[in-house]
């Protein structure tokens, strides 16, 4: 049997837009993530045939939620043993309204939006960062274990074990299925934002492989940031992260050339940047910066906004960039931020000053083995005309990256320096 392409497209679209909502609403019934996932997968499979026969419902998410929840209730009713072995795996505080099991699709808005509960459960600080990312991709984005494994270049068996272990911890240690109370919220939101940001950066510059950008991960991160913005419209950190993703991703078309070669910010064709994304991002940055002191993502987004608004690399307001990095270093004193600050100093005050700032960071253990430090040193040395030192630094940078596109870029720069001195 072949599926009508329009139906297949509608199901795929609903998968991307509605998965988290449907799963979160179903988990409230099952109080078990595995059973909820099974019922939701089943509902999507059913949609392929039922929508083909009866037409696409006008509210696909509601149809899917009703179908998944009914299946879950059936399972629980039919299998009393199952119910007994699932002793409230997820503790909910049942304060929000719960419609009866018979709610039909027209009563869609009656389903409480449980996505925030699901997000905070997946990104609970008692789980490892790897587990948080894997659960987020699996439960909020609806990726299969194989897809999650592929996203992180891990074997499927290892990823399945990681997800199973995380789910077991959620149920055994009783990580609650709940939105944290107000006093814990800032810290917990930050943990969620960190996961989404990590997904984005992993996609934005893939650590290994032949492509510079993992489009799928970037799209997922953007979807998640938009979801958070809908669910937490007042939160400045959320606004900052969405702005950062939009402003950085606005340059996607220009970050690599037709031959796949990496193109630096300095050489990118700014006329091809996504102006709509930049406009949206800048509006969000302004909103995010209202909060004092501004958060980490708001400051990073503000830096991206300075670049987005500069007509050219030469005309970039480097003083403003350095000033923003000065603020960022105070609230987020990571060596990588210090390194980026040194880069900006190198343009605001010249490569000699930048190089001095870089060399002050050379002893940072966290930066040892970080190719970007060597690549930046190489660039400063090249601009200072110190060809031999620059060559050594490029060679060091080459040893430290496995991304083919980055390697090609560094090799090109090395070649431009000319052959090593024959003496």
């Amino acid at each position, binding site marked *: 049997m072949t599926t009508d392409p329009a139906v297949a497209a509608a199901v795929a679209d609903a998968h991307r837009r509605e998965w988290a909502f449907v799963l979160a609403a179903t988990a409230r019934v099952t109080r078990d993530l595995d059973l909820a996932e099974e019922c939701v997968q089943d509902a999507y499979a059913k949609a392929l045939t039922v929508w083909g026969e009866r037409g696409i419902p006008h509210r696909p998410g509601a149809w899917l939620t009703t179908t998944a929840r009914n299946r879950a209730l059936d399972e629980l009713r039919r299998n009393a043993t199952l119910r007994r072995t699932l002793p409230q795996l997820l*503790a909910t505080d049942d304060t929000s309204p719960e419609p009866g099991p018979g709610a039909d699709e027209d009563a869609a808005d009656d389903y409480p939006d449980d996505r925030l509960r699901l997000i905070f459960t997946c990104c*609970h600080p008692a789980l490892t960062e790897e587990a948080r990312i894997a659960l987020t991709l699996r439960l909020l984005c609806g990726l299969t274990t194989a897809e999650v494994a592929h996203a992180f270049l891990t074997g499927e068996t290892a990823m399945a074990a990681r997800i199973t272990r995380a789910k077991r911890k959620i149920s055994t*240690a009783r*990580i609650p299925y709940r939105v944290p109370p107000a006093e814990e919220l800032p810290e917990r939101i930050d943990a969620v934002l960190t996961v989404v940001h990590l997904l984005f950066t992993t996609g934005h510059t893939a650590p290994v492989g032949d492509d510079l950008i993992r489009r799928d991960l970037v799209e997922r991160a953007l979807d998640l940031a938009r979801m958070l913005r809908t669910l937490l419209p007042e939160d400045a950190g959320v606004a900052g992260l969405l702005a950062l993703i939009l402003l950085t991703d606005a340059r996607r078309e220009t970050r690599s050339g037709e031959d796949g070669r990496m193109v630096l910010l300095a050489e990118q064709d700014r006329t091809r940047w996504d102006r709509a994304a930049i406009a949206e991002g800048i509006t969000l940055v302004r909103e995010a910066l209202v909060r004092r002191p501004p958060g980490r993502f708001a400051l990073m987004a503000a830096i991206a906004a300075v670049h987005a608004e500069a007509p050219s690399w030469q005309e970039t307001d480097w003083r403003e960039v350095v000033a923003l990095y000065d603020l960022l270093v105070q609230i987020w004193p990571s060596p990588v931020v210090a390194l980026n600050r040194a880069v900006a100093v190198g343009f605001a005050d010249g490569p000699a000053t930048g190089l001095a700032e870089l060399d002050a960071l050379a002893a940072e253990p966290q930066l040892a083995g970080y190719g970007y430090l060597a690549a930046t040193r190489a660039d400063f040395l090249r601009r200072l005309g110190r060809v031999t030192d620059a060559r050594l630094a490029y060679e060091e940078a080459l040893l430290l990256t496995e991304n083919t596109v980055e390697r090609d870029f560094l090799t090109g720069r090395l070649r431009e320096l000319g052959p090593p001195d024959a003496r």
Partner: protein
Amino acid sequence: MAQYLILIYGDETSWAAAPPEVVERVHAEHRAFQARNAGAVLGGNALHRTDTATSLRSDGSGGDNGAGGPTVTDGPFAETKEALGGYYLVEATDLDEAIAVARQVPAPFGGVEVRPIRVID
């Protein structure tokens, strides 16, 4: 409701070197903690130092004692810089609540670990 064991770990050398007023202050903090969390704390104790510990190994790693039973040795089961120094057994509805209690446990020379109690029926 569920039960959790909060295990208190700390560096014994730092404890041994602590002046009496520090030791007394930490003890006072524990008493205050217990009073504040009387509803959640089901029990708890401080332990003597690991140099008073005796371990019994059944996995054969302690050598053969010739009798076939566990080997009795001097010292803690695992040698770690931060040793188990005490515990509280607490009741909580979920991990967040247990963490909220655990946050208040005085542990100046280390930290605490929260473990869910497993019910075996």
